[in-house]
């Protein structure tokens, strides 16, 4: 290109400087590594899961026995899988029902508190769970729930209530794990909501105050409707996250006792790896994929009208 000393601003639209070769080369060279990696480790495995679900195979034998849709028929009649599915839905529902209101309440509290010292302490400590791995959290809470040496039972006994074997009872285990999930993620949603509440213009608060609105009325009638887009994002994140749960459950209960806290992901792992039933494991994995896709897309679709700019 000829040297131009004085740049003519805006004169050059993208097309004009489009020297085909170098730009095309850049597009290809810059995109190829990412696309290749994703094709190998994301796209191919998904297709391969569906393909493997048509075989009976222990993962080692050179021979895979094609069994048609037998694995899928088995899946449809597999009570444990459907139990895991229901457990997943329970986790989704309880997570959203607890984390969203609690996160919002804490966010409002933090917004009112502003930069005062005690609120800075709150914010710092609240965020700690986000820094721990799910594995560490799972192990920590295993001991917190411990029937003999745990914090929970000791506290309950101190106020005269009876302790429980939280992770050992079929009717308690799932709820005990969901409580930990809420402990782990509520602060995440608090920060998310706080950022979005902060972005609501101060003018609106002043206007509400001049009109005689109380704090509670400001939040209920002015702020919440304005941040509903963020609430939507949060609900979708929580939904997708809850459907993918594995680490925490695996460390705390391994899906037990008696599949009481089994989730689709833990069940899939159990079928594929310890049992070496790769075909059936792949069917479970593919079903997980279909279910997550359907639920995620419907969540996006049905919550469209909540979308806002904030």
């Amino acid at each position, binding site marked *: 290109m000829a*040297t131009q000393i004085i740049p003519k*601003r805006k004169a*050059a639209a*993208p097309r004009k400087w489009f*020297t085909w070769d*170098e730009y095309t080369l*850049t*597009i290809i*060279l810059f*995109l190829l*590594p990412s*696309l290749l*990696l*994703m094709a*190998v*480790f*994301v796209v191919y*495995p998904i297709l*391969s*899961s569906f393909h493997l679900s048509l075989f009976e195979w222990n993962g080692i034998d050179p021979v895979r026995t094609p069994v048609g849709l037998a694995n899928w028929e088995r899946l449809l009649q597999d009570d444990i899988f459907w139990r895991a599915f229901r457990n997943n839905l329970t986790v989704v529902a309880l997570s959203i029902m607890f984390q969203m209101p609690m996160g919002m309440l*804490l966010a*409002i509290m933090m917004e009112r*508190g502003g930069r005062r010292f005690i*609120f800075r302490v*709150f914010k710092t*400590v*609240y*965020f700690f769970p986000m*820094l*721990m*791995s*799910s*594995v*560490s959290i799972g*192990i*920590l*809470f295993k*001991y*917190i729930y411990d029937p003999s*040496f*745990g*914090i929970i039972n*000791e506290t309950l006994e101190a106020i005269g209530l009876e302790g429980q074997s939280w992770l050992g009872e079929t009717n308690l285990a799932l709820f005990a794990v969901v409580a930990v999930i809420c*402990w782990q993620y*509520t*602060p*995440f949603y608090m920060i*998310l909501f706080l950022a979005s509440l902060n972005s609501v213009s101060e003018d609106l608060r002043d206007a509400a105050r001049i009109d005689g609105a109380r*704090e509670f009325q400001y939040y209920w009638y002015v702020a919440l409707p304005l941040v509903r887009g963020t609430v939507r994002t*949060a609900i979708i*994140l929580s939904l*997708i996250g809850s459907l*993918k749960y594995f680490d925490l459950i695996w460390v705390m209960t391994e899906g037990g006792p008696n599949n009481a806290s089994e989730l689709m*992901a833990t069940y*899939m*792992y159990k079928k*594929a790896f310890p049992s070496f039933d790769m075909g059936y494991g792949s069917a479970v*994995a593919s079903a*997980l*994929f279909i279910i997550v896709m359907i639920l995620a897309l419907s969540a996006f679709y049905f919550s469209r009208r909540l979308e806002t700019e904030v």
Partner: protein
Amino acid sequence: MTLHKLPGQLFGLFLGLVWLLIAGIPFYFMVITGFKGRFELFSGGSVFSFPENPSFENYNDVLTGGTFFQYLGNSVLIVSVSVILILVLSSMASYVFARIPFRFSNVLFGLIIAGLVIPLHVTLIPVYLLTREIGLYDSLWALLGPYVAFNLPLSIFILTEFMRQIPVELEEAARIDGSGPMRTFAQVILPLSTPGLATLAIYNAVILWNEFVFAFVLILSPEYRPLPLAIWEYQGEYSMNIPAIMAVLSLSTLPLIMIYIIGQERVVKGIMAGALK
């Protein structure tokens, strides 16, 4: 503060303190128990009480046991290599999506973003088989491909948004001076993207530092394990030595807590990158 606001303020403070206890007590339990003697928990004292003879014995045991530093080293190595690769690849791809219009740009971008929703467990069996086939099974490097591939979508998404905000004028100036797209990328766009890259580095490092499933499935030998898998193993090894396990947990959480205390705002921003955009 006017009077009618007082009940609300008190309620806020009360709620704040309650959640402070809920969030804080598990950490308190973890840290103080790590300083307790092995049998102190069994001797009937309160689990909340301070250690009778606070000692670093558990920490000492864990640190000199020989394996902890190996696990730590494995984690540091795989996390840093993965994060660097993620940043390099995603910044290259983002530059194309943000700045060079081409025919299938939107379609490809949409496909990559769809990767955000995919549950990684779906890929576990094929990735395991693939890793065995290419001979990487049971080595630290088995994790590299999945670690990078699964974190590319969000990184590309965030960086593309970021690069679109950079004023076009700067690139035009570079172009007029005869700089081609690759040089413009390296000398103009990349330096200007540093804040976005820093946020993403923190986000990806935290995610990968805590990753469990792939490590669990792809690595068999203890010497190649990253930290989260090792913690899980320690639990079996020390089974009933709760203070030692708490020392392990405290030690493995310490690096992130330290980084958090040094750069709080930046870390919060980094971890929230997935949601805050």
